[in-house]
């Protein structure tokens, strides 16, 4: 589970008081965070510091203050940087390719740069290209590939050395719906079936919701919200939707008199917040009976991640 400023023994990423400024702009403000193994989404509006955080984790930037370890390595030292880049696979957001090489050669060359032998890198390149679904096109110059294939190539190169931790920056960027589904399937497979740790940076909340177990929301360089997606969205589980038969108006009045906040919905349903009350619905059934109404159905309402994100970023009370 992603947690801000709490201790987790097996955390793959530990960040303590990380700060980074570009001139007068503070990209990260004393950021503290721990990421447990597993798929984690990194959310935040533009300028929240997501890309800066990834660059700091890879050792491409030096922090102004604070400390981070990733996969047990310190990215601020040369030896730590080299070691962590063997343990981490990075899929950049921007389009990238090595000029003049085929897809197979690109993946194989990058495998060798990471420490694979020539023979291993070649066989491994074939395996990961198979995995991401690039067939004969692997023998063509990658410069000529479509955007979707280039995106899959970026994932393949991140996987060539079989890293335990993957940093994926906007992996579905520029993909058509079919390509996006395929990419999300691959990421889900990596996170939930292959049990790789992922840090998925995306603006697309459904992508995170579909592929990640935990989420970290950054706002103005600090953690606005962090935790398991199931727990975060369940915080609105105390909101229920009931389908009412009988005297609906009296039931609503009875709810209001009892201090429940309720919102009428279509098809005769009512959304009711159970803030601070028992999550069982006995009291609702009693109120309905007293007001001459009947409850035909009752269901828990889960907020979407988008609601959680908006609440976290805007610091507003969720309704």
């Amino acid at each position, binding site marked *: 589970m992603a947690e801000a400023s709490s201790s987790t023994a097996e955390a793959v990423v530990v960040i303590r008081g990380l700060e980074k400024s570009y001139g007068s702009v503070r990209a990260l403000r004393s950021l503290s965070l721990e990421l447990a193994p597993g798929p984690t989404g990194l959310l935040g509006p533009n300028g929240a510091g997501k890309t800066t955080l990834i*660059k700091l984790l*890879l050792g*491409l*930037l030096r922090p102004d203050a604070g400390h981070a370890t990733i996969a047990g390595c310190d990215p601020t030292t*040369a030896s730590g*940087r*080299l*070691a962590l*880049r*063997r343990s*981490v696979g*990075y899929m*950049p957001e*921007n*389009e*990238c*390719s*090595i*000029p*003049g*090489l085929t897809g197979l*050669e*690109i993946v194989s*060359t*990058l495998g*060798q*740069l*990471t*420490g*694979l*032998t*020539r023979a*291993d890198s070649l066989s*491994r390149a074939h*395996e990961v290209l*198979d*995995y*991401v*679904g690039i067939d004969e096109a692997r023998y063509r110059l990658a*410069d000529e590939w479509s955007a979707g294939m280039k995106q899959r190539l970026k994932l393949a*190169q991140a*996987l060539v*050395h*079989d890293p335990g931790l993957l940093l994926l920056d906007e992996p579905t960027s520029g993909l058509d719906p079919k390509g996006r589904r395929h990419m999300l*399937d*691959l990421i*889900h*497979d*990596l996170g939930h*079936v*292959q049990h790789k740790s992922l840090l998925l940076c995306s603006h697309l909340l459904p992508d995170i919701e579909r592929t990640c177990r935990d989420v970290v929301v950054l706002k103005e360089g600090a953690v606005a919200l962090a935790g398991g997606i199931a727990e975060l969205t369940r915080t609105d589980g105390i909101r229920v939707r009931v389908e009412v038969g009988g005297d609906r108006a009296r039931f609503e009045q009875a709810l209001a008199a009892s201090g429940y906040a309720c919102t009428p919905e279509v098809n005769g349903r009512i959304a009711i917040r159970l803030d601070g009350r028992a999550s069982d619905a006995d009291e609702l059934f009693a109120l309905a009976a007293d007001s001459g109404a009947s409850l035909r159905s009752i269901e828990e309402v889960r907020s979407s991640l988008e609601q959680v994100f908006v609440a976290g970023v805007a610091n507003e009370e969720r309704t």
Partner: protein
Amino acid sequence: MARTNTEVYRPFRGTLGARTLGFLALARAGIAAATKRKLPLVILFGPPAIATVIFSFVVYARFALEAGVTPSPLGGPSPASMIAVGFAKQMIQVREEIFMFHLAMSLFTLLVIAWFGAGLIADDRRLGAHLLYFARPLSRSGYLAAKFLTVLFFGGIAVVAPGLVICIVATFASPDFAFLRDEGSLIPRTILFGTLWAGVWGSVMLAISSLFLRKTLALVASFAFFMITTAISVVLANLQQDDRFLMLSLQMNMQRIAGWMLDGPSMRMHWDVRWSFAVVLGITAAAWAILFARVRRLEASA
């Protein structure tokens, strides 16, 4: 979710090594990428190859003709002394052939280095290859070493290989390998000069490449650098009637060094060769300073 039998993730069962010479893979990839397009190879390496054949033939012919000299029946110097003097002349002429080869081919070899060096960093930046490299255990020095080796490879083929071929022909054409015995030092000097030439121009070319996003712009800039410095130095030398102004041109300094290393004729270049070395060293140091600064930024922008 994986759907077909090929789309199954296979964990890697081997081991990842800490490869200190990992940058060689990048150099190999650079050479492989550059050699995929055959037409530039033919066009760029054609003239040096033809020149190598011609110069080699001339060297061979000189020794062959000298070996066929017969003593005059009317007396004069002894045949042995005639042959010895003749061979001594040939040795000097072979030295000059190699020197002249470098002069004659300097523009072509420069073209080779410019063509293969101009895109090495510019194209990486344009296509975002640096994003992939610097997420790997590849240091900035390793990246630069790989790029430098790539340009050195092509420069070496254009400059070092022809000189070596001519020396080898001279060795086998001279009787009892006399060339090897009398002028053997010319072989390492040829290699050294060729490497120096390719290294210096390769460094300049990479520095120019790091300043641009497109290979074509880097090519134009490199020719501008060559033409402008050479033109200014020649004009000033002629106007001021002072050949030391030729030192403003990297090309002229390399020619001065070539003359010194290969015992070639001075050709208007009478200044102390140490000045030329100082200028070449200064320009190369500046090129590497630019390279390190630009690659540092490149890594941070990854």
